Each structure stands twice: as structure tokens, then as C-alpha cells.
């Protein structure tokens, strides 16, 4: 797996010098521990027996989500990550972002890669306005930055188009409205290495167009973009390189057209 960088091509040297790596994934393995997943006996006596016999609980399952993936991403690239459900795409993104420590192997990055998304920081019981501030701060903006961008975020989300909804708790929003606000908050910040996890298809037509435009803007500002999606068309539109994961292993890595063609053949 570590031979990734040893393959030489007929690329001219001067062009190679322009290629600056921004993310190096070096033989990364990721193992999850999942509690309460077992099919074993869940009774108290069974648990006590295991404890006495010093046997591991069958309720704790180890899931080997990513198995030895190696690749290098360069500045200016937009890389699509494809694969069937549960193939380890999102997990790999989290490891690149440094949010999930790999069991083995390493991820090297230039600057701080960030996932596009703040869903986890938002609280449904609070108003949209509070959530804009909370989400902005959670993504690492300063208080002044949040204040400065507040109106922009609200306008972009279009939440207030039909009345003053931003001052209502988020739990009263329709799922489309909530998704729009979440995307607007998340997309308010610029990133060095940007990772988008299927965040594109939210909201109505008009909002989708606006968000795609915003993603394009973010892409321009970001050094490197990763996009996880099941929509092959959106990958074709935005990515020039595709990494195909299957069962946690890297199956193929190359130009978009070739990999997607092979992927489509495989899934048919």
C-alpha cells in the first residue's frame, strides 16, 4: 500500500513541481467499537458470567470500517469519493479531518481540513437565530465574524422569506427549512481543505441552485475539495478525480470518467 508515491509517470518535472500535496493518507485503518450491537444473550446473569470469566462482551463489536487506504491529494484537486452504502466513505473523511483517530497508519494534512456540516452543534429547542450564532462559534469563527456574517447567513437560507421564522425554535421548522439553515451556517466559513458529505441535495429547487453556486465558490477558495456522494452526476460536475471505496478498501483511484464508468458497470 505504501507504494502509492513510488509510481512514476511521464509527467514533466516542471509540472510535477507545481503539484503540492495537501492531504496524504498513508495506509489508514479505522476500527469502530460499537456497543449494544451483539446478538448474544443480553440478560444480567449472562453479563455477570462474562465478567467473571473475563470474556469480552459480545455486545461490543469491532467494525473494521477502513482497511489500509493510501492516496495523496494535491492542491487544486476536487476528489469525489464513491462506493456503496457502508463502504467507509464518511469514516474516511472523518479520519482525514482528524476527528476519528486511525487504528493504524497516518493522515498528513496541510492546515486543518474541515467537514462541511454543523448539524451536531445545533439544538432543535433553540431559535434559528441562536443556532446561527452557536453554529458559527462551533465552527471556530470569532464572535465578531459571526456577528458580521449573521445577516448573510439568514438571507442565504431564505428562512425569513415568509415571515419572521428565524426567531422560532428550530423544532418548529419543516425538514426542508432546517436543512437550508444548516447548510447556510455550514457554508458560511471558508476552508483550506473542504469535505462535503452528501450535503448538496437539500431544500427546494431555488435553494439547491443557490447552494451549488456557493459550493463552487467554496471550491475556488479551498485548496482541495473532497465530495462524498451517491449522485454520479454531481460528482462528474464537480470532481476531476475519483476514489472508489468498497468494503473499506480502495478499489480504484483515477480520473472521474474512468472510475465512474467502472463503478457503474460494477453496480449494474
Amino acid at each position, binding site marked *: 500500500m505504501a507504494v502509492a*508515491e513510488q509510481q512514476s*509517470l511521464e509527467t514533466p518535472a516542471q509540472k510535477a513541481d507545481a503539484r503540492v500535496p495537501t492531504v496524504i493518507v498513508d495506509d489508514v485503518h479505522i476500527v469502530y467499537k460499537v456497543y449494544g450491537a451483539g446478538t448474544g444473550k443480553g440478560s444480567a446473569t449472562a453479563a455477570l458470567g462474562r465478567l467473571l470469566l473475563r470474556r469480552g462482551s459480545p455486545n461490543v463489536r469491532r467494525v473494521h470500517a477502513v482497511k489500509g487506504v*493510501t492516496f495523496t491529494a494535491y492542491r487544486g484537486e476536487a476528489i469525489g469519493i464513491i462506493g456503496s452504502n457502508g463502504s467507509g466513505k464518511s469514516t474516511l473523511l*472523518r479520519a482525514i479531518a482528524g476527528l476519528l483517530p486511525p487504528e493504524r497508519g497516518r493522515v498528513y494534512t496541510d492546515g486543518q481540513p474541515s467537514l462541511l456540516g454543523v448539524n*451536531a452543534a445545533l439544538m432543535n429547542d433553540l431559535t434559528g437565530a441562536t443556532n446561527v450564532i452557536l453554529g458559527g*462559534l462551533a465552527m*471556530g469563527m470569532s464572535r465578531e465574524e459571526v456577528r458580521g456574517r449573521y445577516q448573510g447567513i439568514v438571507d442565504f437560507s431564505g428562512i425569513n422569506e415568509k415571515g419572521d421564522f428565524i426567531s422560532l425554535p428550530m423544532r418548529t421548522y419543516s425538514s426542508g427549512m432546517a436543512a437550508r439553515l444548516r447548510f447556510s451556517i455550514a457554508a458560511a466559513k471558508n476552508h483550506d481543505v473542504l469535505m462535503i458529505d452528501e450535503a448538496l441535495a437539500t431544500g427546494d429547487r431555488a435553494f439547491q441552485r443557490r447552494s451549488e453556486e456557493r459550493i463552487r465558490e467554496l471550491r475556488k477558495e479551498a485548496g482541495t475539495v473532497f465530495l462524498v456522494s451517491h449522485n454520479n452526476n454531481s460528482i462528474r460536475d464537480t470532481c476531476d478525480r475519483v476514489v472508489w471505496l468498497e468494503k473499506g478498501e480502495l478499489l480504484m483511484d483515477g480520473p472521474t470518467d474512468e472510475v465512474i464508468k467502472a463503478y457503474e458497470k460494477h453496480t449494474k
Partner: protein
Amino acid sequence: MSTVSETTHNGAVAVGAPPAPAADDGLSPSQLAAKYGLSVSGARPGLAEYTRQLWGRRHFINEFAKARTAAQYTQARLGQLWQVMTPLLNAAVYYLIFGVLIGTRKGVDNFIAFLVTGIFIFTFTQSSVMSGVRAVAGNLGLIRALHFPRASMPIAFTLMQLQQLMMSMFVLIAIVLMTGEVPDASWLLLIPALLTQWVFNTGLAMIVARLGSKMTDLAQLMPFMLRTWMYTSGVMYSIENLTSKAPHFVRVLLDINPAAVYIDLARFALIDSVTSSQLPPHVWISALAWALLVGVGGYIYFWKAEEQYGRG
């Protein structure tokens, strides 16, 4: 998009082997990373850098604590009023059991003020620990989604408890005034007492947050440990009266207990009949020592596992 990568990717469909620039030929991933100054993603920063990052996130910590507190009661009709009602009801229950039914009030002047102070001060530590246990384990979604120093979580949760304590203090002062205490300068001693206790609580919350992130059963076990701690901390009885015939070391052990130290200080500040002669020796020093030891120790202990918390 970028023409550079398109040209270099020609024919590069070899499984698991992306192309590399010729100039970087033969470099291992780690050498390549070193050449371009890339750093390991998710590595733990040094303690000073970590503290700086944490300070940079102070507004987030504050906002998170505020939001959590506000969200807590939004579904209840009485809303934030519960912040005051909960400690009041607690005090009423304990008074009924210990003051009226069991009668541990013997030999204690102004038992109501004595009991309520004890309960509120202990509850501050207790709820800090309880929320600390779940601070990391209960917020994995957030930890796996965004970057921030993980110590923000236990700190935010103890900040919530500090805010709750402020509410309790209004109730406490009202009760203490009703029982006939007169405000004087010694009431100001409450401020350093509560501050040192808050530092102690934060450190303790960080310790249990790290433990709780690995041992998920700790959240179930914690209430029992905390109850044992409460019953040995002189919340509803006077340690001095109880241990008058006990061996000296028992007294020393009970007195050095940090919960007892902070309770003693608060009682000393608020209640006139609790005089300095009733306080254990060096009580301010032990309050400060506990705060420093557990506060700083807990912070370092938590930081040591910083990069692990996302794993769960």
C-alpha cells in the same frame, strides 16, 4: 477543473496506486509529508498551544453552556423557573427527611440554613461530576463533526452548573435570611469559596469525562459513588458533633474531604453560629490546594487523551 491533475492522471487506473510527481519519486508518504510541511491530522497539540486554542474558544464554550441551559427547560411550561424550583424542592425533601423525621438537627443551631447550604454546595459538585461523565460520551456526534479542544465540553458543562448554582444561591440567601441570619462582611467569603470549588469541580469533571469516554458503565455507577460521598461529607449532619468521640484520624479524613471543605467554608461565610473555631485547621489552604491539584491535574489528564475522544 485543474488541468494539472488531469494530465497527470492519464492512464492512472492502477488499483490503489495513484500517480505521483516525478520529482517526489521514491519518497515514502511520511517523507513526502515532511517535504511539504504537512502535519499529522488530529495530532494532539502541546499543552501551551492547547490552552491557547481553548482560550480562543471561550465564546463558544460560553454560548454552548447558555444554549444548553436554555434548551433544558423549553418544553416545560414553567420554563427557566425550574432552575429555582429544583433546588427549593430538593431542600424541602431533605428537610422533611433529615430535619423532621430522622432528627440529625441535634446540636446544630439554625439547622435549616445549615442543611440547605450543605445540599446546595454538594449538589454543585455532584451535578458537575454527573454531567462531566457524559460530557464526552454524550456528545460524540459533535466531537466527530467539528474541531475544537475537547476540554470545551466538560468546561461548558461545569459552567452550566455554575450558572445553576447562582440561581440556587439566590434561593439559599433568601432561606438564610428568613431563618434570621443577618448579612455581614463575611458573606463575601462565599465568592472565593465558590470559585475554588468551581475550579475543583471542573478538574473533577474533566477526569470523569476522560474515564467516562472509555468506560461507558461509569455513568451508571456514578450516582452510587456520589451518594456515598454525600453521606460522608456532613451535608445533613455536623462532622464535628458526630466525630467528637471518634479516633483522631477519622476526623482528619472526614475534614480533608474536599466536599466537606467547601461546605464548611460556605457555612462559615453565611451562618453566624458557625465560627472559625468550628472550622477544621488550614481549611482555606486545603480549599485552594484541592482546587489547584484537581483543577490542573484534571486538565492535564484530560489533554493527554485529546486525540482519542473521537473514537468513542
